[in-house]
């Protein structure tokens, strides 16, 4: 029998002989008998052990059974402890009443009939055991309910998070499709209108002179290039969805690369002044196609977001032993403070409200390429306006001796 199953019976009588008699009567019950010869001793035992039943003699010197019962009942822990009064004095109705007033549960007259004492104690012991079992079951049930409630809350929270994430993804996809449709259809519209204009004029025999035709053909050329760039970006992002960009490094002359890109930008954006600061002869071990794409994206943004024109500074130089720095700075509309944190996110367009073109992919793709070189891309907002993007690449780089002019 484990300690938790044990039922303690506290027997209180000032005459040890009587305690001995009770002990004999109750010996074959499955209970633990504790003896006390005074109310004081009984109280001490009550505080020490968990007592199921107190068997108490009513007439004791110093403190009688009723006084002890009253004290027991005052303690919150013993509110439900069963008390059996044993009384040798006259068994009157008054005595019985007095006993019940203090919350006693039963009353046993003397001479004590062994069978009755055994039956009463046994009944209370059973009640105590059952109550204890019920309490344990109750606690277990409460624990389980709490456990299940907590588990349910967790799964509901998970479900809600998953639903919100799915909704956000669906919204982002719709938004992207809408943006992509617009971005792709716009150059196609220009292409188609221009081609059809040319066809109409040729059919009508209006093709006098070739100046207008060459101008229209260059529109077609530019729009095709624009479309090709968009398609390339879409392919890039779908490749990136499947993993980091593939890079094939080669010794690349930065100044030559930058000059080529700046020349292309100059041809395209006549309102802007391009100022290139590139140290000649800097050869870096980078993926030339990737880095060209990064610089081209930054230049496109610089042009697009400075619609009034202005100066655009391009920097490409060695920065310490094995680091190169690329930077592009415009003097355009900048980026609102609250949008700066998201500009490298896929599909994010800081100026979407103003219907400025773009898929929201340029900076995202650029960042992926820069990170594939273990580099960093950062943005600054100079106090005199505009935006400056800085790319730092920790790559092998060296300066070639200039070829002596003959």
């Amino acid at each position: 029998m484990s300690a938790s199953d044990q039922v303690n019976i506290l027997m209180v009588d000032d005459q040890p002989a009587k305690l001995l008699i009770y002990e004999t009567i109750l010996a074959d019950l499955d209970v633990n008998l504790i003896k006390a010869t005074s109310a004081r001793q009984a109280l001490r035992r009550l505080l020490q052990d968990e007592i199921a039943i107190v068997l108490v003699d009513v007439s004791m010197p110093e403190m009688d059974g009723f006084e002890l019962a009253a004290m027991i009942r005052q303690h919150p822990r013993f509110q439900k402890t069963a008390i059996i009064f044993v009384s040798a004095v006259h068994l009157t109705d008054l005595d019985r009443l007095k006993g019940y007033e203090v919350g006693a549960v039963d009353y046993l007259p003397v001479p004590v009939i062994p069978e009755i004492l055994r039956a009463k104690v046994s009944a209370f012991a059973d009640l105590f055991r059952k109550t204890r079992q019920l309490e344990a079951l109750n606690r277990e049930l409460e624990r389980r309910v709490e456990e299940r409630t907590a588990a349910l809350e967790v799964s509901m929270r998970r479900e809600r998070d998953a639903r919100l994430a799915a909704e956000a993804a669906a919204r982002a996809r719709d938004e992207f499709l809408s943006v992509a449709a617009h971005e792709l259809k716009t150059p196609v519209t220009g292409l188609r209108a221009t081609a059809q204009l040319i066809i109409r004029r040729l059919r009508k025999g209006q093709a006098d002179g070739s100046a207008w035709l060459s101008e229209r053909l260059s529109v077609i050329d530019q729009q095709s290039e624009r479309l090709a760039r968009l398609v390339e970006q879409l392919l890039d992002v779908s490749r990136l969805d499947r993993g980091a960009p593939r890079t094939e490094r080669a010794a690349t002359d930065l100044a030559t690369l930058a000059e080529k890109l700046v020349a292309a930008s100059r041809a395209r954006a006549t309102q802007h002044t391009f100022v290139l600061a590139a140290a000649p002869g800097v050869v870096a071990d980078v993926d030339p196609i990737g880095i060209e794409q990064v610089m081209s994206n930054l230049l496109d943004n610089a042009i697009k977001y400075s619609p009034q024109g202005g100066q655009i500074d391009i920097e490409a130089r060695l920065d310490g032993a094995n680091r190169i720095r690329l930077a592009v700075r415009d003097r355009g509309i900048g980026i609102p403070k609250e949008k700066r944190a998201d500009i490298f996110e896929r599909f994010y367009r800081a100026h979407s409200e103003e219907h400025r073109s773009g898929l929201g992919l340029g900076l995202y793709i650029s960042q992926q390429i820069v990170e594939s070189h273990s580099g960093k891309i950062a943005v600054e907002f100079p106090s005199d306006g505009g935006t400056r993007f800085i790319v730092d690449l920790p790559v092998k780089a060296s300066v070639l001796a200039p070829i002596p002019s003959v």
Partner: protein
Amino acid sequence: MNATALRPILIVDDDEAILSSMELALSDEGYPVVVARNGRDALELARSASPRLILLDMKMPVMDGWAFAEAYRSQESQGGARAPIIAMTAAHDSERQAAEVAVDGYIAKPFDLNELLDLILRYSGN
């Protein structure tokens, strides 16, 4: 030639390639043409040039097509002739519906130049 025939067609689009080719194609057909690259400039032109028809791109910086259509209408409600607006959008369903509510006619980008010219004829006839 009556007064309507002399009033120009206003083309509003922020895309230079589309704008310039449309301008040439409409001029070839003998229409007087004025152009604007955003809604705000278009509002001014609509006031000064009193066009007979407006071809309107919806997604533009500064002031978009919806804002232009709304401002143009409230301007017209204060008196004065109101030209029909044909929206040209590269958008799909929901935005197309929104554009149809805001304007009188609609043509999807990329459009066929011949279809556009037919539409213009229908709306700017008489």
